[in-house]
Each structure stands twice: as structure tokens, then as C-alpha cells.
């Protein structure tokens, strides 16, 4: 009965609660001091509170999605508004998982901002709730594919900043922090690329067609794979490794938005705004 009442009209209340919990989690995680020992009671208490708040935030959104699903009598995957709902959900979930596993204090702030942008868009622009996606984008792959890519871009963006610092700095910590970010970012990048291949098989009949977007996604992935191998094998100077990370991030930009301006990529089937 409750689910039958879940409509976009009450989304503002769910969004407000989810945003409040997400930012509370972010603030608490940022308040945990770097100098506290990981085993100290204070640190563990702050961490538990931020995880609890984060779980609440995800649960509030999950409740709205489940209710909307029930009241629409179909999966909420058809309109622009519905996909943005999922972006918010997956951004918060990915942030929570990364925080639980890797304890990056900044990651909850990033996922809170990312999720809030999409939730606020849904509140401020109710017309997108009825804006139907083009048939090719109406797929269960669409949201996980895009969300994990966005998440990997943020992690690899941080790795890029560390690479810039690594070019001029000398600390060993810079490279080991960059390594962790590259491993996590590459894991998400792999999920994104492979979910794209599986989706392409469903949509067009081919896992891979050397479309410009696919090609640049592969180039980006190969750059990070090369970096990981250079680091594991201990090959290449620190400067060369940092330059490779910077080049990899440039390729990522090309894959993300650069191909829209690349003359040879104008026949891409991934450019939907023509």
C-alpha cells in the first residue's frame, strides 16, 4: 500500500534525507584526524558513524526506487529522471564500498556531491521525469556502465594530480598513493569497458566494433595497464611513470568528451546529441 503512494511528488523528501545523511557521513569522515591511530577508539567511532550515515543515505534512495518500481509496475529505467535516480544510488554505493575497503576520507564527500547533483536536478527539473530515453539507452546496462565510468574518472583524476605532484616532489608516498588510486580506478574502468561490451552485444550484435569511443576507452585502459606493469616490474624512471599517468589521463579526457571534437570520430554511434 505504501509503495502505491510513491511518486515523484514526494521525491523531494527522500532526496533531502538522502543528501543530509550523505553529507553528514562525509563531514564525520573528514573530521577523523589523520594523526589518529586506525585502531584508536575515537577513529573507529567516527568511522562507524560515517558508514552508518552512508548506509542510511543509500537505504533512503533504495526505498524510493523500490516504491517507484512497485507503483509504476515496471523497472524505473525508462526516463531521464529515472536514470538520474540510479546514478545517485550507484554513486553513493560505490563511494561507500570504496570507503569501507580503502578508508579514503575524501571519497564520501565526492560521492555525496556527485549523487546530490543528480538528485537536485531531479527535484528542480520535474520535466525530465517524463522525458523518455532513446530506445538504445533503455537497457539495464546503461546505469551501471555510466556510473562506474564516472567513478573511475574521479579516482583516476586524483591519480593524475598525484602524478603532477610526483613530477616535482620526491616523497615515496606520492607514488604508492597513486598506485592505490590507479588500481581502484582501473578496476572500475574495467567494469565500465566490459559492461559496455556486453551491452553492445545486446544492442548491436557485436562485443567490439572499433567505434571511436570504444577505441579510446581501450587506449585509456591499456595506458593504465601499462603503468601497473611498469610499477610491478620496477621498470621506467619515476618521471616516466608520472608522465605515463598524465598521458593516460589525457586519453581518458579524449574518451570522455574529446572525441566529440575529433574529426575522425564523427561517425561514432556513441554521439547521441546529433
Amino acid at each position: 500500500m505504501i509503495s502505491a503512494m510513491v511518486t515523484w511528488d514526494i521525491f523531494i523528501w527522500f532526496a533531502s534525507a538522502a543528501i543530509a545523511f550523505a553529507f553528514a557521513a562525509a563531514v564525520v569522515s573528514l573530521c577523523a584526524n589523520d594523526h589518529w591511530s586506525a585502531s584508536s577508539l575515537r577513529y573507529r567511532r567516527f568511522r562507524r558513524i560515517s558508514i552508518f550515515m552512508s548506509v542510511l543515505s543509500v537505504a533512503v534512495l533504495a526505498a524510493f526506487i523500490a516504491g517507484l518500481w512497485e507503483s509504476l509496475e515496471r523497472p524505473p529505467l525508462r526516463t531521464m529522471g529515472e536514470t538520474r535516480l540510479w546514478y545517485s544510488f550507484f554513486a553513493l554505493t560505490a563511494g561507500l564500498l570504496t570507503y569501507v575497503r580503502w578508508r579514503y576520507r575524501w571519497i564520501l564527500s565526492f560521492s555525496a556531491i556527485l549523487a546530490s547533483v543528480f538528485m537536485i536536478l531531479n527535484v528542480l527539473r520535474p520535466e525530465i521525469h517524463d522525458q523518455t530515453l532513446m530506445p538504445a539507452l533503455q537497457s539495464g546496462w546503461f546505469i551501471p556502465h555510466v556510473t562506474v565510468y564516472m567513478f573511475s574518472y574521479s579516482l583516476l583524476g586524483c591519480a593524475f594530480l598525484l602524478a603532477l605532484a610526483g613530477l616535482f616532489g620526491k616523497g615515496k608516498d606520492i607514488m604508492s598513493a597513486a598506485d592505490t588510486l590507479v588500481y581502484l580506478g582501473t578496476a572500475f574502468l574495467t567494469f565500465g569497458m566490459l559492461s559496455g561490451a556486453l551491452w553492445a552485444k545486446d544492442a548491436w550484435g557485436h562485443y567490439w566494433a572499433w567505434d571511436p569511443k570504444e577505441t579510446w576507452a581501450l587506449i585509456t585502459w591499456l595506458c593504465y595497464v601499462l603503468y601497473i606493469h611498469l610499477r610491478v616490474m620496477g621498470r621506467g624512471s619515476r618521471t616516466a611513470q608520472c608522465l605515463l599517468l598524465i598521458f593516460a589521463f589525457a586519453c581518458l579526457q579524449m574518451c570522455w568528451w574529446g572525441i566529440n571534437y575529433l574529426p575522425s570520430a564523427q561517425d561514432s554511434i556513441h554521439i547521441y546529441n546529433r
Partner: protein
Amino acid sequence: MGGFPTSFFAFPLNVILLSGWIMGCSLLWNHCRKSLIVRFFLSTTGTIFSVSAFLIACLVIGFTGNRDIASSWVFVCIMLLLQTVLLFVIMRGWREQTPTGARLGAVRWRFLLLHLGLLVALGSAFWGAPDVQIMRMKALADMPTQEAYHMDGKPEWLSYDIVLKDFDQSSYEALVEVDGKVAKIKVNHPYSRTLCEDVYLMGYDERGCVLEIVREPWKYGTMAGIAMLLAGALLLFLRGPQRQRHVND
């Protein structure tokens, strides 16, 4: 560019060559492990060279937009080199080793899933490419059709009829009778006629809808490789950076 006669290597020639390649690699591994070529495949130089060569080839495709490069002799050689390096590296590194390499230990799951997954996915796409058949046809309303056209324009008569029963423009769904069975086909939801043959909806006009028939017998290999890579990526996320190893993998 282009130029590699892909269709010439269709079944059974691709399976014979694949068997020969695996046997050749096994022989080299078992009997000539100290030879220069095997040492190159197992070296850090071999790994970095093969990944870099693949990366450069992709960059050329990316900047020029020329997809024919992917069916050129040079590209085929790079793919073969990459697969060979992957195969040798997997044979050496799938289990933990002591510094002397004498004793085998626990299975290195992350390494195995990522490398074998990539090899299986790439290998299925590479060796299976000659067996892929793509045809287009027009399904007409209440008129059985058997005539389909390959991408090079060559016609083929299907062994079954295809009839368009209904088409809903608003939901972009076609109700099509394929081989006596009525199926609903829409974008992202192809119809699997057999294990190796899928029918896709590609477009429509006032006379009927355009269907694409894809025959890809090796698709399950690619799917298995992707599944392994996904599991490996999960371990990449969970375990994070690997310490520098004494063996070069």
C-alpha cells in the same frame, strides 16, 4: 589498410591453426624454455613491448578513425604476439613460486583471472573473427522472406522464413515470426534463434523493418573471458596494489 584475408581462415582452418599455435607454445615451454624466444616472451621487455605495440596500434585507429587497420597484417601480428606473451606468462605465473622457481605454491587467482580472462576474450574474438557472419534483411508485413544480404552485398537464402507480424513505433518493438516461432524483438533485446544465431532489430520504414542476423559461434568464449576479467577486476578493487615481485609478470 586492411588486407588480411579474414574469411579465408574460417572454420576449420582457424581451429587447426589455433591448435597448432597452442601445441607450438606448449612444445617451446616444455623443451626450449631457455631459448632466446621463450626468454623474450617471459621477459619484462616482452610484456612492455607487446602492450605498447597494441597501444600504439589502437592510438593510430583512434586518431585516424580507420577501422580497417584492425584487419591488417601488422595488427594481426601484434595480436598474435600479445596472446603468445599472455600464454607464456600465464603458464609461468599462475601459481606462486619460490625465488628459484623450483616449488609451485598457491594459485594466484587475481593474476590468473585477469590474464587468462584477457587471453580467452581476445583469443575468442581473434580466432573466431573468420566465423562471424552478419546479414541484413527486410522483414515485410505478412510476406514470408528468406533473402538476406551479407555486409559485402552477397545474397544468402535462409533456410527458414521471416515474417513481420506487427510493429509498434511508440515502443519500437517488432513482432516477428522467425522459423515458425513468433518473437518480440526490440533494441537491446535480440531474439536467439539458435545458440550461435541472434536476430536484431536495426530500423524500420513504411514497408517493414530491417533485421540483422548475426552468427557468432565463438561468442561464448568472449563471454567467458569477460566474466573472468570482471572477477579479476573485483579482486583488483578488493586487494589493491601488488608489491613488486621477483618474477616479471
